[in-house]
């Protein structure tokens, strides 16, 4: 039953329920299939053969198989692999109010630092040394 050119339906796997054609017979219960499913080897136990036999060359390419299946009403979709794009980096969106608050705080800190420096120089004025006081104590 399972010869080259036999139409089958896949029973198991993620592409169960899809139709395919046998392209080559491999050793020990394995078979190469192609069609609406992916081009790969498959176990005989996972295939259900139909009544149709189609003339096909051994090891036919994917394009030849698409040509043969078209008049039967089975359209094979060819998909290209997607180009992987770099994910856009997430930039933190800081709210305006938060930004302004932060800037205000920085200004306040700067002001306070300046005031402190000025106040330090005012608190400690240089006292003039009184020579008279010192001389009196030394006499005694």
């Amino acid at each position, binding site marked *: 039953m399972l010869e080259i050119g036999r139409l089958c*339906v896949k029973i*198991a796997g993620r592409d169960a329920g899809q139709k395919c054609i046998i392209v080559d017979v491999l050793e020990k219960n394995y078979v190469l299939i192609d069609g609406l499913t992916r081009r790969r080897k498959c176990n005989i136990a996972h295939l259900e053969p139909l009544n149709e036999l189609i003339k096909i060359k051994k090891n036919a390419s994917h394009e030849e198989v698409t040509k043969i299946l078209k008049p039967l009403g089975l359209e094979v979709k060819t998909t290209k692999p997607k180009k992987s794009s770099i994910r856009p980096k997430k930039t933190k969106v800081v709210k305006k109010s938060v930004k302004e608050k932060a800037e205000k705080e920085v200004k306040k800190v700067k002001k306070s630092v300046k005031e402190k420096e000025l106040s330090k120089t005012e608190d400690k004025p240089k006292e003039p040394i009184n020579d008279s006081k010192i001389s009196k104590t030394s006499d005694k």
Partner: protein
Amino acid sequence: MLRPGKTKSRSFRRVFTRVISKTKLFYQKGKPQQAKCSECGAKLKGVPRLNATSARKAPKTTKRPERPYGGELCSKCMRIRIKENIK
């Protein structure tokens, strides 16, 4: 904290956990049952037991197997149904 009186019936799971200097009592809601095949009643594989919040966060592919009737029928019943649908 749960509303008073709700923990009297044993519908909430009681869990004791150790915190630094003492053990505390927490109440948890239960998980749903293991999913079953709608035809034969066998337990389904590949379907985790998740509660509502963790199911919402988990991606779709981790909640069921990637094949037709995945999450509804077991693999045996799925093969039988596809054979019937051919004819």
